[in-house]
């Protein structure tokens, strides 16, 4: 495996991203040292390369990536993996608001707590929160799945249209157009496969605790008649 190291000290986000894009073509793995919670790291990377951020990242880490696998061994700020289409963003620590905002695909994992509006306007893909997820998680969610191993805060699934939010802990309150269902066997199988794959060791009893937040209606705002037929 060919590795390339970038020292982020005294560099701007643009300089770092230019260095990442250049080295991604010729290397299998890029290691970013001294990231210092800088914003916009690994923005728009479309090479299927591994990126290790050796510390914390700031806002919009991994925004608009397609295929890269990013591992952050610290925390992340607001909007990690924003609008990702394919790839993986794994955050060992906690994350701020808007985790996986608007993603079209890929997987985002936050090992500890996440802030508000996790998975807002996401269209597809998977978001796993190892701890608690904040206010209005799943806001205007249009597809994909969010899995929360801790508690989910107020107005969960606010105006959700499609997709599902799996919660192992307490649901503080539901948002508009959201309802709670029991998980079925297929859901459970998928959860076991996915969570095991990302290193979450849960017991059989733990899996029994999961509930699923889904939309009450696919057309909550514009009536029952679909223009698409």
């Amino acid at each position: 495996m060919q590795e390339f190291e970038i020292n982020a000290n005294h560099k701007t986000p643009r300089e770092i991203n230019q260095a990442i894009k250049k080295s991604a073509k010729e290397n299998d793995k890029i290691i970013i040292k001294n990231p210092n919670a800088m914003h916009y790291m690994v923005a728009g990377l479309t090479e299927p390369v591994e990126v290790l951020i050796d510390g914390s990242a700031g806002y919009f880490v991994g925004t608009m990536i397609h295929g890269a696998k990013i591992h952050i061994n610290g925390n992340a700020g607001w909007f990690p993996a924003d609008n990702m289409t394919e790839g993986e963003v794994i955050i060992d620590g906690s994350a701020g608001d808007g985790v996986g905002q608007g993603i079209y695909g890929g997987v985002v994992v936050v090992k500890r707590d996440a802030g508000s509006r996790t998975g807002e306007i996401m269209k597809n893909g998977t978001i796993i929160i190892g701890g608690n997820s904040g206010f209005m998680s799943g806001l205007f969610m249009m597809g994909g799945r969010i899995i929360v191993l801790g508690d989910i805060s107020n107005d969960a699934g606010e105006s959700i249209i499609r997709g599902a939010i799996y919660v192992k802990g307490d649901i503080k309150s539901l948002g508009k157009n959201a309802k709670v269902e029991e998980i079925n066997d297929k859901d459970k199988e998928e959860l076991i496969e996915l969570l095991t794959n990302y290193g979450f060791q849960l017991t059989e009893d733990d899996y029994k605790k999961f509930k699923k937040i889904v939309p009450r209606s696919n057309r909550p705002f514009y009536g029952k008649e679909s223009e698409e037929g």
Partner: protein
Amino acid sequence: MCGIAGVVFKDGKLHRVGDSLTKMLDALQHRGPDSAGFAIYGGLGLMEDEYLLNIEVKEKPGLLEQVKSMVNTATQIKNEEIIPSVENYIIYRCKVSLNSFSQLKPLIMDIDKINDVIVLNGSHSFEMIKDVGLVKDIAARYDTHSKQGTHGIGHTRFSTESIVDRYHAHPFQSYIIPDITVVHNGQITNYWKLRDPLERKGHIFETTNDTECIVHYIADKLKEGYKLEEALEQSIKDMDGPFSYIIGTPNGVGIAKDQLGLRPGVLAENNEVFAIASEEVALREVIDTHDIEQISPGEARAYTI
């Protein structure tokens, strides 16, 4: 955007708070380039009746003497310092004695009547430093790295509604009770609804800036007997708009965040330090950030020594 920061050293002893806040604000420089400011508490060492005035004076022949004369008619100047600033202004600092805190605001209002002169603040238990420009430049101008204290708050400003000048740089201060300051990121959209009852109580507004409204609101609540955290919690119910702000008092600091969580705030704490800021990048300058907390929408947190 604006960047806000606050730090408390829990042992109540003197630390290099100026250095800590300078590093925190420099890390938040990208959130606002217009101005920056500090309120550093606990390091002034003034006598019980002493106050420090920070006065912006335009460089014009005879103007500084006019200011000194005005101050001397009210009370004797005990100590003075001139700090060069930019745009043909100096900051004139003087130490004065007053019989009571209630004389401070009238003195400031009298000095403000002089053309091309604005009192940036008057304080007893904290040092206010605020100016236009970048954190590094202001830090060099005022030697903020050397300032000691027990706790403090700071700000980098990205101006939205009001003008860029020293007075509108944060922190803002209230004189309803002694030494209450605020730094703020966001907007208060029901500003007039908050301001009107405060003015009816006789509180004086110097600007139409929403940040000034916050500090008067909190000072008024503290005067009514609220604890800092209670005042912050009540403000979240009463204030509309996107905001996170940090209050400084002679005993500590506290943060409040709007109910929708539209402005950022993070916190880290250990046995020695309580630190709050807009972003982790600032916290890491003063504390290990392995365990940071996101301030939740509608949440208030405070630490008092």
